[in-house]
């Protein structure tokens, strides 16, 4: 066929595509992964166009570049500086080849670049192979052509033929949508099969209307996750660095257009209302001022609602990753587990969502490994051979509770008692009097794993202490309940939002401080004469319990001694470590807006943030977890 008259069209379209390719690579380098698909599409289109036009070199290079990129899409390659360099080299080369077609004559050879791509993929895939066991698990991506009206039927045929040969674990879209034709032109299957991928590919490619088949060995993401978590658990510091790093990354958020419109409306209202103020200065009409102030405060509260609404995301974003994890892990552990999720629609602040994945994963792991017994053992105990793990979310007032319940063997309180005595923390008598609810909290401390065996799967009691720290860092609480031989329930209590919290404002040395209410148990009056000193530590006995005493003015570096007979104390902390913090006076309880401290305060760990109060004064927010 004479392609001559297509040349101009090709020239226009391809030059735009080439420009976009270069831009997309740069965006990718800057961390904007949303451009990955666009880049892939552009290169793919270019490949098709050059092939039709018969520009062999360009086609070959575009093809190789597409392969390279496919490795990133399927997560077998990471976006490294080397990778970006190579991509840019490809893009430059494509441009030169393109210019050569249309006039310029620059001699180049693409062999070197093609070889570089090959080496690059080979080198990296060799290193990744080790960490990817993925036995018989494949992801198949099928591009379907043919009559668009019949693409649902075609998908039905493919689905059926595939299911006769392999075990389909997952399909995107789901079967019903697929046969209705509700998909673009690509369907994806996660499958398990003994068949060789080449065989599978051959068989699928032979089917009518199948344009393209990609088969990738699926990564066992479960395992790689496990590794990073173990690392985090062991080195708390690196965990902290990690989260801080994460927060400083640029994060993009998709927002519904309707929400932006709503915001725009509210802002418009504000602007209109603002003009009413200038009117007031002319007329000094008092009722008008009152009206306007009222109106403004109404607008501001809807603004606040709207903005915090935008920050909310359903927990489903995180929860949806667990069924697969539980499924794979239970197989590995040879346990039968019914995994139930409830309340995934509950919404939570975006800032929290990325932080809760790890703690939940930890707890789930513990439940599967140490909680749920083997099917044989369960049967002996008269339990259902399949264990139950329930992940539930619910909202109460300004808190979200995420519960992980398992009907496994529970926590042996007696063992904890023995360990406390063995470790010399408390004497036998005291431990004997301690309540179960307090004892159980000890497993939040390091070295209190009650697991008999250390398995490769979850290691030594994948630190409940580490989980506790992460949850605290998120401003939440970890609650553990259990009935030995019957069940364990771990609850993560989280604030609905991070930026607005309830706090108590106190004064000390005429300065204001805020203490988050969820760190406060109660306020007490401390009689100065009752304070005793043991080993240089001031203590006070309250209702037959011993509390260490902290004086806020000492903490902030003042030497002055209190002379009052009765001191204002606040019981801070949780059930394991409670302290009394002495302040000068309580001011108020109020909602405060938390602002981050400037970098200057990076090395100060007394404070977690700062807030501007309604009066215009500033209050530093005490980081209670670091005080105790």
């Amino acid at each position, binding site marked *: 066929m004479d392609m001559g008259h297509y040349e101009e069209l090709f020239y226009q379209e391809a030059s735009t595509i080439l420009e976009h390719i270069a831009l997309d690579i740069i965006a990718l380098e800057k961390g904007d992964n949303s451009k990955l698909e666009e880049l892939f599409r552009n290169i793919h289109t270019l490949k098709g166009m050059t092939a039709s036009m018969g520009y062999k070199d360009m086609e070959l290079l575009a093809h190789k570049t597409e392969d390279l990129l496919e490795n990133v899409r399927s997560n077998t390659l990471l976006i490294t500086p080397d990778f970006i360099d190579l991509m840019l080299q490809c893009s430059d080369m494509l441009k030169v080849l393109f210019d050569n077609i249309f006039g310029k004559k620059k001699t180049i050879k693409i062999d070197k670049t093609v070889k570089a791509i090959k080496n690059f993929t080979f080198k990296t895939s060799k290193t990744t192979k080790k960490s990817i066991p993925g036995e018989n698990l494949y992801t198949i991506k099928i591009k379907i052509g043919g*009559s668009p*009206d*019949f693409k*649902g*039927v075609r998908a*039905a*045929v493919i689905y*059926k033929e595939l299911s006769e040969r392999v075990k389909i674990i997952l399909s995107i879209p789901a079967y019903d949508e697929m*046969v209705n*034709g509700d998909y673009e032109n690509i369907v994806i299957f996660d499958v398990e099969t003994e068949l060789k991928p080449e065989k599978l590919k051959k068989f699928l490619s*032979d*089917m*009518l209307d199948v344009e393209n088949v990609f088969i990738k060995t699926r990564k066992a993401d479960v395992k790689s996750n496990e590794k990073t978590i173990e690392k985090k658990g062991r080195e708390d510091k690196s965990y902290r660095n990690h989260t801080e790093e994460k927060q400083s990354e640029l994060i993009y958020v998709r927002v519904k257009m309707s929400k932006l419109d709503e915001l725009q409306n509210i802002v418009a209202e504000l602007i209109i209302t603002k003009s009413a103020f200038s009117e007031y200065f002319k007329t000094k009409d008092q009722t008008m001022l009152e009206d306007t102030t009222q109106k403004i405060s109404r607008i501001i509260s809807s603004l606040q609602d709207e903005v915090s609404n935008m920050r909310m995301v359903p927990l489903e974003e995180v929860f949806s990753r667990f069924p697969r994890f539980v499924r794979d892990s239970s197989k590995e552990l040879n346990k039968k587990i019914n995994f139930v999720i409830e309340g995934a629609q509950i919404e939570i602040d975006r800032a929290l969502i990325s932080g809760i994945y790890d703690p939940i994963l930890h707890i789930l792991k513990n439940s599967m490994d140490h909680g749920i017994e083997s099917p044989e053992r369960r049967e002996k105990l008269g339990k259902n051979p399949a264990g139950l793990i329930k992940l539930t979310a619910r909202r109460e007032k300004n808190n979200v509770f995420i519960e992980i319940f398992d009907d496994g063997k529970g926590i042996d309180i007696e063992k904890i008692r023995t360990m406390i005595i063995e470790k010399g923390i408390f004497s036998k008598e005291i431990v004997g009097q301690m309540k179960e609810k307090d004892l159980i909290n000890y497993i939040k401390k390091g070295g209190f794993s009650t697991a008999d065996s250390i398995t490769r799967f979850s290691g030594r009691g994948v630190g409940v202490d580490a989980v506790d720290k992460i949850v605290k860092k998120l401003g939440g609480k970890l609650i553990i309940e259990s009935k030995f031989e019957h069940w364990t329930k771990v609850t993560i209590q989280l604030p609905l939002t991070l930026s607005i919290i309830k706090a108590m404002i106190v004064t000390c040395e005429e300065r204001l401080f805020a203490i988050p209410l969820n760190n406060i148990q109660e306020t007490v009056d401390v009689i100065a004469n009752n304070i005793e000193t043991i080993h240089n530590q001031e203590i006070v006995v309250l209702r037959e319990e011993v509390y260490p005493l902290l004086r806020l003015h000492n903490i902030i570096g003042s030497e002055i001694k209190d002379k009052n007979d009765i001191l204002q104390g606040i019981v801070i902390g949780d059930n394991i470590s409670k302290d009394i913090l002495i302040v000068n006076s309580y001011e108020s309880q109020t909602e405060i807006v938390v602002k981050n401290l400037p970098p200057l305060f990076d090395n100060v760990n007394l404070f977690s943030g700062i807030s501007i109060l309604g009066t215009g004064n500033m209050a530093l927010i005490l980081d209670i977890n670091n005080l105790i």
Partner: protein
Amino acid sequence: MDTKVLVVDDALFMRRMLRDILEKNGYIVCGEASNGKEAVDKYQELNPDFVTMDIIMPDMSGIDAVKEIISIDAGAKILMVSAMGQQSLVVEAIQAGAKDYVVKPFQAARVIEAVERILRK
């Protein structure tokens, strides 16, 4: 060995067209049926290597005929011949055991491609 085909369609025109296409490509059309009931009877009688099956026919639809034939011979190779707008019926036929489909109006090459693939399996 010759491959025997049973062509099922209520329209003589379609049967003729399919016969021409198939015979031109070396297949033996061993019989024709103009409704589902006849198709099932002829299938048992002639034991063809594969069947082309129309969907909307008097006396027993193509879908029911597929179900009947599959219940007699689970390995039966049936190619559905569908018109536009019959997508959900074809899906039903596929679920019932038909191997593939072509859409009317079809090109000869397409029919042959489908037939060859079915026979290869």
